[in-house]
């Protein structure tokens, strides 16, 4: 208990920078490992299953010569690690697919070409990312505000009708699948009442209004699901924190109850909420598969589903890379925020 007296806690900018660099290197290594695993699974699996990737690319009715050309051009005969290295190198450097005189240049960042649309995977990702990003960002804000607020009020009014109904609603929110609430809302607000229109496609040239109108229902549906969980989490954490000795100390100072809640209780309750939030955000940035499928939003999740069902290996790889990167970065941000919130956490 009686530890030695340490100097002031604030980590210097240097330690923070060193920490950041170390963490970023760790992120890159982690993403590479994930990528290698995905690469191995998706490029070796067809082989083990007796399928030819060249056939997947060119189609079943291709001639032997054509398949040989595909193999040569995509480098499919090279050892796995060589193929992997070519793929990784292509991301920052760009890549040339060569089959004799037939040269296709894939500019950086090159993730290869889709087997189905023959578009560069990057183009697909580039179009899908903003959709997923907008979906995730809007839903996050909604669910954090709604979930945390509900949780706090529930904790403060524990045992009352308010608390009970909020928690029952939350239980519903957690247990109802997105496609159910999504279809229900679409049925009511799009088809029945006609209040909102959902665009078939979302692109950068669509107006803000179109984006908002298309995303509002997915936001609500996704936020409802998560807000429910956050409300329960916040309530439980708040109840625990409110029993802490330092909350009693804050009251003993003569602080108004609102200040006790805001400054003392909520600040402590943020830590576990932040942990879960970081993970959720990361997962969400990899594509909210069910939500995107339900609302037919051309985000990463929908691309992933389509790519998997059509065995479009390069797109699967690209989406996996995005998801892994998002989760790793979100975790890094959470760890940094920990240090901001809790002075006992030391970076280093």
């Amino acid at each position, binding site marked *: 208990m009686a530890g*030695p007296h340490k100097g002031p806690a604030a980590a210097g900018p240097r330690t923070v920078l060193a920490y950041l660099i170390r963490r970023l290197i760790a992120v890159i290594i982690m993403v590479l490992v994930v990528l290698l695993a995905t690469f191995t699974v998706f490029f070796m699996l067809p082989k083990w299953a007796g399928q030819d990737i060249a056939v997947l690319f060119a189609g079943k009715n291709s001639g032997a010569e054509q398949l040989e050309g595909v193999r040569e051009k995509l480098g499919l005969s090279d050892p796995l690690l060589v193929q992997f290295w070519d793929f990784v190198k292509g991301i920052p450097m760009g890549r040339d697919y060569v089959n004799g005189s037939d040269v296709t240049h894939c500019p950086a960042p090159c993730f290869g070409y889709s087997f189905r649309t023959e578009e560069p995977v990057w183009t697909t990702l580039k179009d899908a990312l903003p959709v997923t990003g907008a979906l995730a960002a809007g839903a996050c804000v909604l669910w954090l505000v709604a979930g945390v607020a509900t949780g706090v009020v529930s904790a403060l009014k*524990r045992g*009352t009708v308010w608390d009970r109904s909020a928690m029952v609603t939350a239980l519903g929110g957690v247990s109802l699948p997105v496609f159910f609430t999504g279809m229900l809302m679409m049925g009511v607000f799009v088809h029945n009442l006609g209040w909102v229109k959902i665009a078939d496609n979302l692109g950068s040239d669509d107006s803000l209004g179109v984006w908002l109108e298309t995303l509002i229902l997915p936001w609500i549906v996704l936020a409802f699901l998560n807000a429910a969980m956050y409300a329960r989490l916040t309530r439980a954490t708040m109840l625990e924190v409110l029993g802490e000795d*330092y909350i009693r100390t804050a009251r003993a100072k*003569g*602080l108004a109850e609102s200040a006790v809640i805001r400054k003392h209780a909520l600040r*402590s309750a943020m830590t576990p909420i932040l942990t879960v939030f970081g993970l959720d955000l990361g997962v969400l940035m990899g594509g909210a598969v069910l939500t995107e499928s339900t609302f037919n939003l051309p985000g990463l999740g929908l691309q992933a589903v389509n790519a998997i069902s059509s065995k479009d290996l390069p797109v699967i790889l690209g989406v996996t890379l995005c998801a892994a990167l998002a989760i790793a970065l979100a975790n890094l941000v959470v760890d940094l925020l920990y240090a901001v919130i809790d002075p*006992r956490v030391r970076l280093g």
Partner: protein
Amino acid sequence: MTELSKTGAAVGEPVAGSPAPSAFLEVRDLKVHFPTDDGLVKSVDGLSFSLEKGKTLGIVGESGSGKSVTSLGILGLHTAGQYGARRARISGEIWLGGKELLGADPTDVRKMRGREMAMIFQDPLSALHPYYSIGKQITEAYRVHNDVDRKTARKRAIEMLDRVGIPQPDKRVDSYPHEFSGGMRQRAMIAMALVNNPELLIADEPTTALDVTVQAQILDLIRDLQKEFGSAVIMITHDLGVVAEMADELLVMYGGRCVERGTAEKVFYEPQHPYTWGLLGSMPRIDREETERLIPVKGSPPSLINLPSGCAFNPRCPYADIPKDQITRRERPELRLVADGHYSACHMAQDERTRIWTEEIAPKL
């Protein structure tokens, strides 16, 4: 209430319902009950005492005797923020500086907390917020009650840290609780409690969580500060040694009630209740023969839901059968005057108690 005022009047107890007292702090027939699923927990059940400025009252008793509940009750912390939970039921009167607190507007009481009455808690590590620096927590306590800017409050915090003996206060003000040692944390806690010069300071086992070596320092500090600020101090402890030197008056609690009250001298040297004897016997003393063993109080604290009938201490009392007709098991003894300012709640005759104390107990201590 009729019963209480009757008995109270008989022994010169403060009477509930009478006009404002002259004493600085006066607690009259305080009851703090908590409804639970198992029944009503009567943590404090009819406690009365008074305290003047500059004086120290020691409240002594085992865990669960109602000491801490009493102190939180005075500060009004049982009712503050009891969200949805079944609230504590508090009755009686608490007069502080001529104001009655239990019937007062909670906002008024809130504004008195920290300014006119402050508290030092048992475990400074858990009682300080881990996310805020010491300075921030002290300035917060200051700025709630004083309309000053951040700089002035910070200066005040540094001044207080210096006063409680924290070295390099201008640097340590930015440290966090986890960067302090246990003793330092308790010093910071004291600085926080005293930042507004409160007239009443309640110290709830302020040294229990500390190293023995720093306990004496902290007690000295509290005593010095009390002299300097002239505050009334309530020192709550289970350790008679802690209050031996500090307290002017002692109040021994058992099962939520006062069993003995008097000047520290009287209670220490002429104790009139078997439970006080037990406490004294279980206290290690340096002048005791090494071969003699501590004498524990046998048994465990009573259930506060179903107190033993009669005297709450009777199942553990070696002398319970001395009074006739099993009265100790049937009738609750009232607090009766023994000598000037010295009260005891025991069925035994005073001669009998004095005899047992001088012949059987005192020689063994």
